[in-house]
């Protein structure tokens, strides 16, 4: 059976096909208005065969970021209609007389207070009234609500009121309903509300999209990537679309983890430098880290997502000179459209233009020669900046590069220090179009010894898709202090959830031998407002104390522990893809030479085409290595190797 990974990006849709131990890749231009069109076009030649499709989609992300979601109604405990508007009462911009808050997503006309109340201990103080809900259903129809989000206080502990309302609304023909107690059964009403509303608002959009793909692939097996790096069936994603918000980038991290495993490099700092920004992430001891929340569009979204630190420095970041005559780079970006000056549609001097001026980017081989760029426009744009700071056009271009490197360096330090790590003990792992341009210089600044630029970096996320596992998380709010009685209670609860998890895996046709469930606990000391997630075991309290001490340098007593949530991570292996490698081929290469402006002077760099390079070949630095998707800069201080997986490996001499 074929295994196909597809990642839809803004410009290209990437395809990775695994068949009989071989990996093939290609790219097609994306059709942003109907992303499924490109997918179905790319799959046309494979439809006669049996395949398993794993897909990373940005349909949900884009609908959210562009605010093109469904018209959603919000049903909330009476007296609390404004909680989305109030949020956490803080502002996003500290220094502004026009304080902004995250958007509340739902329009005022579609917010309805419902007479009902559950207390913190789960006791129902007031039940919902059927007549009231029926009247409400009429109103919802009149106001043309496409989907409905329901959030009642303390429903994480007792969902009965939420469920009662859902039942009535279902009967009355509403198809898309999200209960806060189903999507995120944890306390903190605002955060739960955000997820509930977002999920509802995405349901019609994602359902429609998935149905079109299903139609196109005619009953083949099909999974969708979630933000946490695991996949779910389309049926589940239709119910929980909020889980796809970071679907695309997740694939890149799975691929990174895979390469970490294959090459024995267990600790990686990944660097995905694109057009508008750079994403930095960490793979530690062979695992990428997940965060419990992420801020997108200023909204804090509490869904497990791969942990990424984003800096506003990408190929399209614009250089400016401020009133004090100082050069700045970004955060404004020319994006892909109009793009850098050299694309021919703007006059913005960008990081990409700087690399063109330095003669590091080869204008005749941009995207493998498939895209025409105009180097003279780069010169003009950078020259304008150079005049303002009274430097040569070359020194200015190099300054732009150095400034962007220093801001990425700052992000890398932030993400590693936060976890108590030292970047020097990591390998830098750039992918995405522009990562190779800055990686070696960044490594030098961070005192990192080794850089690996992976083979399939142009389709890296799609590559990750074919190696991914089915992953579904089940959780339940406990909120009890530690005691032997609580321990028994948890065990019982775990049994209950395990049954639900096993049933789900059964429904997904994952054979018993390929299943794996992991039990987790969210614990904290009573009174704290953040939790640590600890694997469940007999002596979990001790493990928690130790972990807490390691991170925060103190521990308290057993009875101070509060069990906040229990979670089950149900995993199923769905793909049999593996990563193969070629033997050594000692073919001689004769590199060309290329005059590049580097460290304040023109220097001759060896100029290699990546497609001519094999494991075992001897390469010389300083060098530029180009492929269709990227350019790699190798300063004098680095040795170059091609490893057996065709990765380019740079090592400090």
């Amino acid at each position: 059976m074929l295994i196909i990974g597809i990642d839809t990006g803004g410009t290209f849709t990437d395809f990775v096909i695994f068949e009989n131990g071989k990996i093939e890749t290609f790219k097609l231009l994306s059709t942003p208005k109907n992303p499924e069109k490109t997918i179905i076009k790319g799959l046309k030649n494979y439809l006669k065969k049996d395949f398993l499709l794993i897909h990373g989609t940005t349909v949900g992300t884009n609908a959210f970021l562009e605010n093109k979601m469904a018209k959603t109604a919000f049903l909330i405990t009476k007296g609390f209609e404004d909680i989305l508007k109030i949020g956490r009462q803080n502002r996003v911009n500290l220094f502004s007389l026009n304080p902004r808050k995250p958007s509340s997503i739902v329009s005022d006309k579609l917010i309805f207070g419902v007479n009902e109340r559950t207390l913190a201990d789960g006791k129902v103080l007031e039940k919902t009234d059927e007549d009231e809900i029926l009247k409400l259903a009429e109103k919802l129809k009149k106001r043309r609500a496409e989907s409905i989000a329901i959030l009642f206080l303390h429903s994480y502990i007792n969902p009965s009121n939420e469920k009662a309302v859902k039942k009535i609304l279902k009967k009355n023909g509403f198809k898309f309903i999200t209960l806060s107690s189903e999507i995120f059964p944890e306390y903190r009403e605002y955060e739960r509300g955000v997820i509930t509303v977002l999920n509802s608002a995405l349901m019609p959009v994602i359902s429609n999209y998935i149905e079109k793909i299903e139609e196109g692939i005619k009953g083949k097996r099909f999974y969708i990537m979630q933000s946490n790096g695991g996949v779910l069936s389309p049926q589940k994603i239709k119910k929980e679309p909020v889980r796809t918000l970071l679907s695309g980038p997740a694939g890149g991290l799975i691929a990174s983890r895979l390469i970490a495993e294959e090459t024995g490099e267990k600790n990686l700092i990944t660097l995905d430098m694109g057009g508008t920004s750079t994403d930095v992430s960490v793979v530690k001891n062979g695992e990428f880290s997940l965060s419990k929340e992420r801020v997108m569009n200023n909204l804090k979204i509490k869904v497990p997502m791969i942990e990424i630190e984003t800096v506003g420095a990408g190929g399209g970041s614009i250089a400016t000179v401020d009133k004090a005559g100082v050069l700045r780079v970004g955060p404004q970006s020319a994006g892909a459209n109009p793009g850098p000056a050299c694309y021919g549609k703007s006059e913005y001097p960008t990081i990409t233009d700087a690399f063109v001026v330095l003669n590091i980017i080869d204008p005749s081989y941009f995207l493998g020669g498939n895209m025409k760029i105009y180097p003279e426009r780069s010169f003009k744009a950078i020259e304008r900046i150079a005049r303002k700071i009274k430097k040569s056009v070359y020194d200015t271009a190099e300054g732009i590069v150095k400034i962007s490197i220093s801001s990425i360096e700052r992000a890398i330090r932030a993400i590693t220090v936060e976890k108590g790590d030292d970047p020097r003990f990591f390998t830098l792992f750039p992918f995405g179009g522009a990562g190779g341009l800055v990686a070696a210089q960044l490594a030098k600044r961070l005192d990192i010894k080794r850089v690996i630029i992976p083979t399939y970096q142009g389709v890296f996320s799609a590559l990750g898709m074919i190696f991914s596992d089915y992953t579904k998380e089940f959780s339940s709010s406990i909120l009890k202090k530690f005691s032997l009685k609580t321990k028994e209670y948890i065990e019982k609860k775990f049994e209950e959830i395990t049954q639900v998890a096993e049933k789900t895996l059964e429904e997904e046709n994952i054979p018993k031998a390929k299943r794996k469930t992991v039990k987790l606990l969210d614990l904290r000391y009573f009174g704290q407002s953040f939790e640590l997630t600890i694997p469940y075991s007999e002596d979990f309290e001790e493990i928690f104390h130790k972990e807490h001490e390691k991170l925060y340098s103190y521990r308290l007593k057993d009875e101070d522990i509060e069990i906040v949530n229990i979670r089950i991570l149900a995993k199923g292996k769905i793909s049999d893809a593996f990563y193969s490698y070629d033997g050594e081929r000692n073919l001689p290469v004769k590199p060309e030479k290329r005059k590049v402006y580097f460290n304040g002077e023109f220097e001759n760099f060896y100029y290699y085409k990546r497609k001519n390079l094999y494991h075992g070949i001897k390469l010389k630095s300083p060098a530029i290595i180009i492929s269709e998707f990227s350019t790699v800069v190798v300063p004098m201080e680095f040795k170059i190797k091609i490893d057996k997986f065709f990765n380019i490996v740079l090592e400090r001499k």
Partner: protein
Amino acid sequence: MDSIEVTIFKNIFQSISDEMGKILQRSAFSPNIKERNDFSCALFTAKGESFAFGSHIPVHLGAMPLSVKTALEEVEFGDGDTIILNDPYRGGTHLPDITLITPFFYKGELLFIVANRAHHSDVGGMQAGSMPLASEIFQEGLIIPPLKIIKKGKIDRGIMNFILSNVRTPVEREGDLMAQIAANERGIKRLKEIVDKYGIEKVKEYAQNLINYTEKLFKKFLLSLPKGEFEFEDYLDDDGFGNKGIKIAVRVKNKRDKIIFDFSESSSQVAGGLNANRAIVFSAVLYVLTTIMGEDIPINSGIMKPVELILKRGSILSPEKPSAMAGGNVETSQRIVDVILGAFSKILPEKIAAASQGTMNNISFGGKGYTYYETIGGGSGAGRGFNGTSAVHTHMTNSLNTPVEAIERNFPIIIKRYSVRKNSGGRGKWRGGDGIIREYEFLKDAEVSVLSERRVYSPYGLFGGENGKRGENILNRNGKKIKLKGKFNLSVKKGDILIIKTPGGGGYGKKG
């Protein structure tokens, strides 16, 4: 000053202050530091001028350099020493804010100083949380003058134990102090790496360049303002001890190469803890200047150089010891911002917004075995081209609310209502933001204290915009509504409902 290197060094130095902050946040004990980010970290030259600043708290901005300056003047320190202080009369702001200052010596020379300040959730005194309605600073908590808490790399256990013996939560305090020590250590370590890499002269030069760069940008901004004098005054309701209508007045004199803020017409010091000091006034001034410049400017001492403050001794902004100061930082600081903005509205009508709620609505309650403290947001003022924002914290604070579900789980309280206070924003061409209504039903008897402002004097509107509605504090007892003052201590009974309505923001421009 190289126009490229200055940006690179800005990133390097800011990365160090970021890193100090991450260490502090990661290893601190208290939620106030870990979750509400109530701390700041900064780097200083040997002269005590800051050149990199990492903060989420505007009120720390101007205050940190004054702490470092006091430490430099009062303590003779050497390599391996760290100084601690919180005394508002010697470099502090209010007692809960504790600052740690560590010099960086390199080959025997004092090159730089690193410092951090964090808000501790208790420093002793008459009331848990150390934010009481008091009439003397001695009641507010332990006063720490500049002292060496670390001598030649060794923690002085005597001093540490002395501090810990005077607070309610010693374990948490020690943890937070250790985190502050670790943050400074990290700052020193990273500075050493940078100096090893680039050399003493270059690093010193760029620290100074960064300050000059900010000063240059700031002076360009001053030049863009009209020359002349403009003034404004506004009032605090009362100090909780019978002093009413406490005036805060400013006269701003823009001389182009410098700008003078003269507060000498403000009221005399008061009995209740609304007194502020130079550090707080400085912070408010810098907050306003940074905000109206509206430009991404590296924040450091460069912005302070052309600024001169005139405060009258014995006034509410420069009180004599032992005046109480707990509320100066949280309430008076907001009114200082209001008057500075009001003054600027006369020369920058298009840039300045009407008054925001102008209070933090400090609510605390406690009963058997628990105490709780929170602040409530309100409306922000409207400006030209935009309506105010509703239900938000403004100006000198930005702390989060506590979820209803969290409060109800932890305390014998039900929140009956948490909503936007409709139509409380001042009307006008652009409307002020609305305040908040929060209703607490007590399930058991409890003690409540409230420290709130703008219950008498409204947040002002500008250019024909109406004032925002004043806040209201109400007790509903057996269905009877009793109006409460702005500042009070009260014993509530089971079944009582406390209703807090926070002020709206002022409107901007005439309607119609």
